[in-house]
């Protein structure tokens, strides 16, 4: 029998080979552009925000007469020549601290899930690799800022697209679906009082002490230390962050309703050291369809825009007041946009040839808007931004080398598909 090297060691040495041979190693490319932000608040507008009704306004249309165009009037902003919809009146004066990217584009329109996946992973679906979400990528690339807080928190519904892919569950999110109930697993069940929880934990500790588990090996020890850690994170120390009542009434009001409160919570999480917070604006109480404004869904679209406007303006001002705006990147993103034409019910279909996303904060050189579309926002004309470029810009803002590789087993996987950050912002 020929003795072989230990299996683990063998794998490790194979990976070393990979680094040398396969990687797009940075020593052959120009130095990466790197920003200094430490956190990211990623606001997700599920359903596909209509750019022509919000961040890329054009001439007015008429849904009844089926004349293509914007649903709302445009207004001026603090950046000369850049206009937004009238329902963005609160961010309009702050637009010099933001950049709307109006020329982002991809090719998925017919299926939300696939487009959501594209705008969370920056990739087309692969037959062989499950790509990590942007949140997991950030968590893996720069990790936690403190042991007292998780790296990646999601305020929205769990799904595969927001998950860690091949990076493994260590880089998964903690999630909560609203600001009241706290994160699944870390917040005390509703019927359990704090006193009772304390009693339970004491009982568990005592039973663990007398528990003669036959085989207390490394795996049990690891599990026990995970247990200790979870008790710590579910204890009052960290869960305090979810208590929005600690903030002043006027600040809470300035953020607005449930979506605003989520943004406020995101700020608190970031303050506590969380790296990446995805905040979903999926509050479909007002129009049922959320941002997916087919047919009658469009009639109350302005309410969604106003909610977003209020929360975003409050978030920017609040972070600024706390001197955190420079080190926090705020992103507003969505799976695709919508065409200028109206559908049978006066709403809009899907369009991915061009749509708008927004960046704010992070000490970037903001310019109000980047990229230009044609007269009805149907096609991008100038400064086209691909999805990989958009992702590279986010990673670069956070000081992450967007050109480096992760490894799925033996296989090198670059952080983006050759994305290049928007140099003008740095």
């Amino acid at each position: 029998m020929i003795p072989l090297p230990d299996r683990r060691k063998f794998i490790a040495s194979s990976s070393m080979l990979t680094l040398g041979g396969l990687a797009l190693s940075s020593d052959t490319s120009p130095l990466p552009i790197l920003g200094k932000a430490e956190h990211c608040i990623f606001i997700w507008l599920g359903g596909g925000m209509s750019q022509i009704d919000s961040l890329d306004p054009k001439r007015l249309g008429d849904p009844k007469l089926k004349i293509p165009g914007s649903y709302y009037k445009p207004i001026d902003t603090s950046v000369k020549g850049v206009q937004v919809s009238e329902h963005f009146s609160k961010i309009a004066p702050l637009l010099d601290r933001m950049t709307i990217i109006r020329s982002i584009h991809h090719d998925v329109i017919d299926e939300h899930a696939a487009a959501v996946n594209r705008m969370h992973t920056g990739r087309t679906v692969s037959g062989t690799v499950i790509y990590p979400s942007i949140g997991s990528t950030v968590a893996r690339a720069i990790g936690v800022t403190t042991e007292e807080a998780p790296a990646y928190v999601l305020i929205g519904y769990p799904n595969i697209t927001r998950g860690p892919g091949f990076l493994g569950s260590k880089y998964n999110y903690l999630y909560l679906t609203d600001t009241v109930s706290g994160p699944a697993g870390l917040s005390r069940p509703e019927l359990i009082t704090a006193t009772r929880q304390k009693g339970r934990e004491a009982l568990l500790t005592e039973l663990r002490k007398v528990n003669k588990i036959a085989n207390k090996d490394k795996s049990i020890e690891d599990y026990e230390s995970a247990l200790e850690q979870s008790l710590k994170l579910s204890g009052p120390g960290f869960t305090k962050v979810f208590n929005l009542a600690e903030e002043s009434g006027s600040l809470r009001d300035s953020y607005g309703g449930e979506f605003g409160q989520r943004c406020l919570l995101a700020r608190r999480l970031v303050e506590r050291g969380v790296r990446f917070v995805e905040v979903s604006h999926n509050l479909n109480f007002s129009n049922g369809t959320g941002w997916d404004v087919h047919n009658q869904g469009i009639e109350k679209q302005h309410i969604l825009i106003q909610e977003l406007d209020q929360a975003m303006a409050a978030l920017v001002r609040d972070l600024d007041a706390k001197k955190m705006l420079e080190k926090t990147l705020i992103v507003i993103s969505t799976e695709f946009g919508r065409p200028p034409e109206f559908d049978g019910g006066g709403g809009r279909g899907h369009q991915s040839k061009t749509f708008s996303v927004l960046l704010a904060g992070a000490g970037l050189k903001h310019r109000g808007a980047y990229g230009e579309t044609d007269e009805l926002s149907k096609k991008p004309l100038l400064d086209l931004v691909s999805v990989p470029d958009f992702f590279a810009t986010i990673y670069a803002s956070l000081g992450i080398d967007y050109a480096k590789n992760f490894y799925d087993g033996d296989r090198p996987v670059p952080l983006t598909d050759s994305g290049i950050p928007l140099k003008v912002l740095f």
Partner: protein
Amino acid sequence: MFYLFVWVILLQISLLITPLAAQETLAFWHFGSEETTRLESVGGVHRDIVGPRPPMFPDFDPSNTAVKFDGKGSRFVLKDPGNNSSFDFTNKDSITLESWVNLPQINKNENLYIIGKGRTYSPGFPKENQNWALRVRELDGSTRVSFLFFSQPTKNDKGDWHRWTSKTGFKAGSGWHHLAVTYTFGKPDSISGWLDGKKISGAWDMGGPTSNPPVNDNDDIWIGSSMGGSISNSFRGSLDDVAIHRGVVADAILEKRFRRVGPEQSVVKVDTFIAPEQVGKNSVAIQLYEGWDSIDSWPSSKQDFLKPVISYDLPFFAFHRIPLRYDQWGIRTNWQETVVLRASSEVIVPAGSHEILVRSKGAARLWIDGKLLCKTPNHNKETGGHEAVKPVPPLPAAGARQVGYGDHEVLVKFAATSGKHQFVYESLVGGKKFRHDTGEASVAIRLQGETQFKIVQPNLINNPGAELGNDFFLIDSDWHNRTLKLELDLVSIDDFTRRELASNQNQYWAKRLENSKAWARNNPAPSPPKATNLKLVNNEIDLFLAAKVDQQLKQSQDEVGSEFHSKILPILSQNCFRCHFEKSKGGVKLHSLEEAVKSGDSGKPSIVKGAPEKSFLIQKVRGIATERMPPNGKGLSEQEIASLEKWIKAGAEYPSNSVAAKNLVFAPVLDDASFLRRVFLDTVGVPPTPSEIRDFLADKNPLKRNVTIDKLLADSRFADHWVSYWQDVLAENPNILKPTLNNSGPFRFFIYEALRDNKPMDRFVTELILMKGNIYLGGSAGFALAADNDVPMAAKAHVLGTAFLGVEMQCARCHDSPFHSTTQKDLFQISAMLDRKVLVLPKSSTVPAGFFEKKERESLIKATLKPNQKIDPEWPFLNIAKPDIAQDWLLQIGDHREKLAAIITLPQNQRFAKVLVNRYWKRLMGTGIVEPAFDWENRIASHPELLQWLANEFVSSGFQAKSVIKLILNSQAYQREAKGNNFLASADKRFFIAPDHRRMTAEQVVDSLFAASGTLMKVEEITFDSDSRQPADRMLNLGVPKRAWQYTSLSNERDRPSLALPRVQAVIDVLEAFGWQGARQNPITDRETSPHLLQPAILANGTLSSWISRLSNDSFLANLAINAKTPEELGDEIYLRFLSRLPSPEEKSKLLEMIEPGFVSRIKTTVPKSSFSNNRLPRISWTNHLVEEATNVKLEMEKRARMGDPPSDRLDPYWRERFEDIIWALFNLPEFVYIP
């Protein structure tokens, strides 16, 4: 009265007819019962259907028959005789086409073919070659007569469609009509239509009038269909007397063609009672008919009820589902079109004026004694999600069960005389665009004077002999409990049907079994080595393991020239180390000299170098000082003691070894309780019940472990436990919404049933590869799907490689593998075999252009295939198996997919059997003999001979997984304490002296929580379409899960609160924390098992944990607490339930501290309320999820899910809370989630 033309004669005649001849009848088909029409029939053409007959149609024979087409492309085909045949028409030629039609139904704007020449889409013909055609066409609610041809292209004109449609028509469903068209080509004004003997006007409404000639070629004449069998152009109904004439048939003749006595058949459908062939006597007899093509009309003739697909009996008029439909392989497929369910029984009813409540999802009718009592409305078609949220429906009686979501209910009075009444319930179940869900179809009755409805059963009079409590009331708890029982009946029906159908293939598989056995005989594995110590051996497996350890010890002896490893260490390890190694009973450790010379609790050193007589060890083994060691058995032999003395005298050296001595000591065998917990978890996936543990502990049979193993292997829950393993390995990845992101179909059901039926693995894998049955309903065809994937079969080839061949081809998808010998071509050759055709490499599966240019150094990866290169279907792995082994075993020669299945699964491919036995070994022992189990290239086996021996046993059993699993479970190797460290050891240093310590899988955690606590898995149905209004290819319904494997990712990529399934999510939160992946985009062999904080966190604080530890009124644990006689009994019971052992004295005293105070007064005397909530919410599904209210309802549901059932009001709250806290603590102990 009519001429009968047979087409052979026609052929001869046609050659004689000149184009200028006067009117000639070219063909006239009467479809008589005796007629031997030389028409070739394709698909569902039914002869001997009742045609137009007297007295309504006096010109016909009383026994006149017609022909019926199923409308799915079925047709008669008449071959064109060739060039210049009589069926060729050009300008100045006249044609008359006529037919009798009986068309029950036509959709808006449909064009259905009666007869036409050309446009068959046959190879060699253009798609625009309509020579001529007679059709019916729906327009503005009436069915018109229509004529169609395509004009011949010329130099200046590329030709065009020309369609004439009559201005008037008839109503579909109004019985037999006669229609005809006459036309002289080249003269657009010459056209005339005929309907029921009257000339009718019309217009050229497409392509306009033309004087151009028609296309004229040798394409075939089709009756009943066109366009390759296009379903929306195929005739769905009956035809009679179809004729083709050359020339214009005279008006006088066409006028006389139609003679009817009385008015036309009314379109308003009359409900006709068709007496069932079989009526249940003491049961409800059910017959299911498939292929009915309507969801809003009823069959009205006896012929529609000729052959039920299945008949069965149930005790009640309650139909929570219909049996599953299986194909000829016993694999799940879909019911065709709409299923008509008929249920009948002679019901004994007391006299009185009663009320009857009929429920159904699709349309339903109830007949009593042949009279229609009531009907429910038709099933609603799908909508876009904007339907209003319906208010909570009123209850038919206080406390009654609410009507099912999307179901209809009708309440009627029923005045009955005492005695037998024949009840016949019919329902239209599902349809072409709907799943075949029955909802909560049922017939219930409220007898005069009673307050509650009960489900109708054959005897509604309470006679003294009747079993007490036999009534099935229409209340939530009864519906829940009774349908659980009915489900068992249906499962046994499904089992029976499936196994019957699967036996169609048994002959082939019997031969394969013989072949496997013969191969195993002719290729024997190495015989197991001889035992050196029988105490370490249960079966052959242990012999192989011991041999490797002995070999290692002998090597050590050679190396260090010591008898220690061969003689002394075995004595110490087998007799002493159990207590004096890691543990130190009596303060004594014996595993090193350093420890052994120390004094233990006795104050005497165990070993005094050079002085055996002074060594306490010797005194103990001789039994000189106090009690003898080892305490059990006969003690050491004189010879063994002599060896020890000699060794101590010589200095008691512990010579080092290349393998540390402790790594060569077999771990002790597990105690009975731990063994039982482990073996239950490994076979049925849940821990044993307290009574199972007590029985096992009390059992004196020395073979009780073997007996238990046999019992567990025969338990049907074995399938529930093992299905999830194959879901991972085979990347089963269904989505309940439209497939995307590499989704497959839900072939979990195929896997589950294969396990349930003990399908041999060669057959299982063959059927998987052949992809049979329905994609969306659980057939192995679901494996074929890989949504959003540019080469689905390449994804499948990758899965098959890792699952069954130990070949990892992940990298080969886009380029040759850098660390393996596999090339991209290998992967695509297998993909091409799966696809049964030459594959073209898409650009998207290649390395992007420019990648190699960027490199300064030579790249590790090579792409030997170029985009758009063609790859032939061929077996690439000649080092694993030769492709010619398959040649004698193919049912269809030349089928590449079948060939691939055979090459993989035949015993000559030894890799297959070895990979599988290694997988079983790994799942049970924690580490494979070969690691990684999915990637064998350049790996060696830790025990090559054992591997070969197991593989041979597997092959000779006919690839029965359980034969190998049984061998492993019975081995001492498996039954030892889990102290192994095999996973990190390299193959040569892997000895399996103990199994690895394994954490429970996610599924085991969840299933154990429910099983141990007795909590019901009350979660939502896993679907977004609970009102069954979407086709299966858009939305799946995976049902209400009972076990963890039945869950799937909820994939709410749309992020809509209205699509949340909060109770399902609560379980998924736990599953995901413990390493389960609901979306398996890639195959998984090794799950992540490393502990992280979300695991203990979700068990401590998750919603599911609240449910498990909550003592609600319906909860099992509440009943346990109420019925317990003493606190001790209760404490024992919950330790047995959650940890499969009794509490230690320390644990017990802690328990009693909590349970004893207030135990006597814990029970309160209030009348308990049921946990089935009366506070009802409106229902949300895809149909209405886009309206505002849907979000609010779902948020309320989420809140309720988090709260769980209200705590029991039967128990004192302070005592209850303490007991709940103990339960909580028990499943939060690390011990709970680790397999002993």
